[in-house]
């Protein structure tokens, strides 16, 4: 966009009320063109999408229409009724809402506007919520879940009747998840309350802006779009890949080799933000940095499992510029303004070009100065990936994921929420729901099944009519059948279903399980705690803790020490390699001219691979086979991300089992996949029993996938999430566990019973849709299989190739056993037999 300062100044005078013009003048600033343009479009009655890089003054732009309107609004006279909310601001993170309150409060105070701004999040105390309902602030900063709760209140219509604007921050990140679906439905509801409502979406650069423009407005007629304002990126960021003095390891994710160099970089800068991809990486990096921290620099840790209080303290210290470095995961990914960050260090590969751009945007919040970032690849493949991401960022490539269709479990939750807010007419609600972009293509029959599900569970066996949660009365309207339904709904609202977690409770050392409760340090996933033995040491919140035992819903720990420290793994937080980046990495492998850009040791690695085996062409799939020990290995290099590889691994082992190759297990990384077996797979391929082409045939996505899926723990985990969101089973809260496992019905049992009795139930449909898209990445696997058809290059080797080393090193760390859990039971039973001399 070309800047025309004169025009902007003229416009400013027309569009901005006098106090704003004065304020800008006093600050020595002038309003930016996009800020004024957004204001003009909004004042013209349009909804608008603003796409701008960080540091472009997006937040102020988003609030200008509200602030100018509120500045001109006549004051409320004493005795006059309180006015409703004027502007609703919705962000994906609680921390962001708190941050905005701080940042917006400043100009409002300086300009002297009579505007009240308040937050409402899960942390807001109930007396404040009550008061907000009676005396609403002008601007309410909140999250999608809170909006859902407000809509389900029986006074929702009155509460929102004065609403003018909804500002949606970090829209690109909101829309890609189920939270986005819930939010889209909430917006549709608000539009029914206030048809003249305008939306303002703030977003980082995305691949398909039109999708977001549709998302912002009612889809009647379908395809209707909000206005668009795009601000070009600021100064080109200064990004480098660490060219380490040390040896870059073959595999692993810790980047331990680079710690001294990272520490030097921290010392040279004012404030450094260190991003990692997973919470366990964050723990490790933090621990290692403190080990190197001879100068005792203030270095902090921030991730989602830590106790809220601790997170807030770190955020505050950061805002006060009291920290020199902070190690963080995606909890800090989004547009929180951290002031004086002058270096971003990204440890591990960024997994997506857009994600990298977002994170680098954290440094130097001034558009005209280049952001500075260093990428630290943790292993050799990540060097390639970092290089590819770096090229992409310069080229401005975008690989944000495409939007998916609205989920039915979310719709179920919303329908119940609407009923809690008041009676509804099914025809009207159907029209309203279809105005939300994710549900624009929803069929009436599906909608009716959802309503039926909400009412009685929607089962073919009509057993629950008398227990219906909502009922259709004689007037044709649906109502909740009892006030307790609304209470239940309120406890279960939201779409974020965490894996079962235990509080980590600290006790004094030596007291064991008898120790009195000390502070809660955070949360840990149950399945990790289950693999610990009393006396094990593990790393959490930067401390070494000794596991004492599990007491009710708490994991009891004391101070730990010593070697053999375990780092908890977390199910969440692992992003797969983006399709775009994978494509780039394949391109780089195939093109030896581009190796010049790589560190010498990595280029060398590729050259030796070329000599000993082969490097695949851009569109080819390389499959190597080689014997090792008394096993036979097959390593494939699809570069499609860990999830797709995991699915592929499951399906390949099934097929190899049928071909009597006796596969023993497999392991998947983001780049490659290794399968090992007792029999010689190369000989099988040669004898075409099956051929490699047949083994990798797309038809594995048919029956094999179906058969495997049904028993897969992944589907059970997905079902649990859907069942909680849809309101079939309740969220687990800490404390409820006390009643013991035998009292509740586990989602796994429900899944088994439902699958055998009503496989087409709407919730199972929703589960399958989710699993194919999420945990399994089936579509990506499908695209890969069809791409490599007839282009599989088989290389049989006498020994392991250089390219195979990284994945081979992962074996034993996280291999997936092909067989069922009964094998493990058999081993345990045999051990006993053996020990007792009965074998």
């Amino acid at each position, binding site marked *: 966009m070309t800047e025309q300062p004169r025009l902007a100044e003229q416009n400013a005078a027309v569009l901005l009320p006098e106090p704003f013009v004065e304020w800008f003048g006093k600050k020595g600033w002038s309003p930016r063109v996009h800020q004024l343009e957004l204001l003009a479009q909004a004042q013209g009655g349009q909804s608008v999408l603003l796409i701008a890089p960080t540091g472009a003054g997006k937040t102020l732009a988003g609030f200008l229409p509200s602030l100018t309107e509120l500045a001109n609004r006549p004051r409320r006279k004493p005795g006059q009724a309180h006015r409703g909310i004027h502007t609703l601001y919705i962000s994906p993170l609680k921390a962001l809402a708190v941050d905005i309150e701080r940042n917006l409060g400043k100009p409002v105070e300086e300009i002297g506007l009579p505007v009240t701004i308040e937050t409402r999040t899960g942390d807001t105390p109930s007396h404040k919520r009550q008061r907000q309902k009676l005396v609403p602030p002008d601007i309410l900063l909140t999250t999608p879940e809170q909006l859902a709760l407000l809509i389900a209140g029986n006074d929702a219509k009155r509460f929102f009747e004065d609403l003018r604007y909804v500002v949606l921050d970090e829209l690109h990140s909101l829309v890609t998840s189920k939270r986005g679906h819930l939010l889209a439905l909430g917006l549709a509801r608000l539009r029914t309350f206030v048809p003249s409502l305008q939306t303002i979406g703030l977003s980082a650069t995305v691949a398909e802006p039109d999708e977001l423009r549709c998302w912002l407005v009612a889809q009647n007629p379908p395809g209707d779009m909000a206005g668009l304002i795009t601000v070009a990126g600021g100064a080109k960021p200064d990004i480098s890949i660490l060219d380490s003095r040390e040896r870059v390891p073959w595999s692993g994710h810790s980047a331990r080799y680079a710690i001294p160099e990272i520490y030097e970089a921290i010392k040279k800068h004012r404030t450094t933000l260190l991003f990692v991809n997973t919470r366990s990486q964050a723990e490790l990096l933090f621990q290692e940095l403190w080990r190197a921290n001879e100068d005792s620099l203030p270095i902090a840790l921030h991730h989602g499992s830590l106790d809220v209080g601790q997170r807030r303290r770190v955020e505050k210290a950061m805002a006060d510029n009291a920290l020199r470095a902070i190690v963080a995961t995606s909890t800090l990914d989004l547009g929180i303004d951290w002031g004086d960050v002058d270096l971003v260090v990204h440890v591990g590969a960024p997994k997506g070009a857009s994600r990298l751009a977002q994170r680098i945007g954290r440094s130097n919040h001034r558009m005209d100065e280049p952001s500075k970032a260093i990428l630290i690849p943790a292993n050799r493949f990540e060097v390639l990936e970092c290089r590819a991401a770096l090229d992409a960022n310069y080229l401005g490539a975008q690989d944000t994921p495409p939007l998916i269709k609205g989920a039915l479990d979310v719709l179920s939750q919303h329908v119940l929420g609407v009923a809690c807010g008041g009676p509804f007419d099914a025809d009207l609600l159907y029209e309203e729901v279809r105005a939300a972009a994710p549900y624009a293509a929803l069929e009436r029959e599906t909608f009716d099944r959802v309503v039926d599900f909400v009412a*009685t569970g929607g089962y073919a066996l009509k057993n629950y009519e008398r227990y219906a949660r909502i009922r259709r009365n004689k007037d044709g309207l649906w109502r909740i059948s009892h006030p307790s339904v609304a209470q239940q709904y309120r406890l279960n609202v939201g779409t974020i279903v965490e894996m079962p977690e235990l509080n980590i409770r600290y006790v004094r050392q030596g007291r064991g399980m008898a120790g009195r409760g000390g502070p809660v340090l955070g949360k840990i996933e149950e399945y990790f705690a289950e693999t610990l033995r009393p006396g094990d040491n593990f790393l959490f919140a930067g401390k070494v803790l000794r596991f004492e035992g599990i007491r009710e819903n708490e994991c009891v720990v004391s101070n730990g020490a010593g070697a053999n420290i375990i780092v908890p793994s977390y199910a969440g937080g692992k992003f797969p390699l983006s399709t775009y980046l994978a494509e780039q990495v394949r391109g780089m492998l195939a093109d030896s001219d581009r190796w010049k850009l790589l560190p010498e040791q990595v280029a060398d690695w590729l050259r030796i691979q070329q000599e000993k085996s082969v490097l695949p062409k851009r569109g080819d799939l390389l499959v190597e086979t080689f014997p090792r020990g008394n096993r036979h290995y097959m390593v494939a290099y699809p570069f499609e991300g860990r999830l797709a590889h995991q699915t592929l691994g499951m399906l390949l082992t099934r097929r190899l089992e049928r071909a009597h190759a006796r596969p023993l297990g497999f392991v998947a990384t983001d780049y490659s996949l290794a399968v090992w077996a007792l029999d010689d797979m190369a000989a099988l391929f040669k004898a075409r029993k099956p051929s490699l082409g047949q083994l990798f045939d797309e038809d594995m996505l048919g029956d094999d996938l179906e058969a495997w899926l049904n028993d897969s723990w992944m589907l059970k985990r997905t079902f649990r999430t859907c069942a909680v969101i849809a309101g079939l089973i309740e969220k687990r809260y800490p404390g409820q566990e006390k009643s*013991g496992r035998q009292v509740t019905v586990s989602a796994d049992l429900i899944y088994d019973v439902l699958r055998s009795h009503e496989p087409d139930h709407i919730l199972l449909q929703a589960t399958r849709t989710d699993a194919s898209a999420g945990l399994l990445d089936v579509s990506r696997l499908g695209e890969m299989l069809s791409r490599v058809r007839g282009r599989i290059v088989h290389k049989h080797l006498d020994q392991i190739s250089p390219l195979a080393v990284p994945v081979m090193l992962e074996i034993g760390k996280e291999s997936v056993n092909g067989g069922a859990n009964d094998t493990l039971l058999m081993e345990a039973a045999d051990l006993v037999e053996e020990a007792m001399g009965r074998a």
Partner: protein
Amino acid sequence: MNFSLSRAMLIAEADLVGIAGERAVCDRRGVLYFPDLRLLAVSDLHLEKGSSFARRGALIPPYDTGATLLQLQAVIADYQPRIVVSLGDSFHDGSGAERMHQSFRGRLEAMMAGRDWFWVAGNHDPEAPTDLPGETVQELAIGSLVFRHEPSKLRVEGEIAGHLHPCARIVQRGRSVRRRCFAGDGGRMIMPAFGAYTGSLNVLDRAYADLFRLETLVAYMLGAERIFAISGSMLRPG
């Protein structure tokens, strides 16, 4: 005869477990069969648990009663017992029998026909299901065995109980496996819950304190095709 053949196939001498001198089969489907008495024991059916939840607003699938009865039908067909003991908590709540769908009631009655059937009272269903056949008892003594729902505090040789829904957990190669199980020490046996929606409680939980001689405790964990006898020292809490 057909069914005696199938019974012979089911029971191998090695699979028999001794309880206070009586011999029993721990079936991997969660029932206990005493071939010498031709007695089948099943515990914690929790029939109509689904509808019990539905009454309180959680509309979980109404197929649990059907699933549980189907499984029960299968074991009864296999063993053809003369006596069946349902060890309490047969229904999830006192009005469960009334709520039961007519077709399920028919299936249950067909299973009961031609054999002695005892409903042992449980804490969920202290009153007998009045309109169903079978005899309701607080407890039942047969030979050296005593059948009751809740295991008694004092040690009783030959006690067969339910109530606690035992499961056991092992960790092997860094992976954790949890299964329902029979828990026994040679003198007493606590049976796993049989119902489709029944959860379970680890045998190392406080609730089991003092019930077993720890040195001889064995968890008979239910596998997909067989039972796995795991000694107490291999088990993990949680």
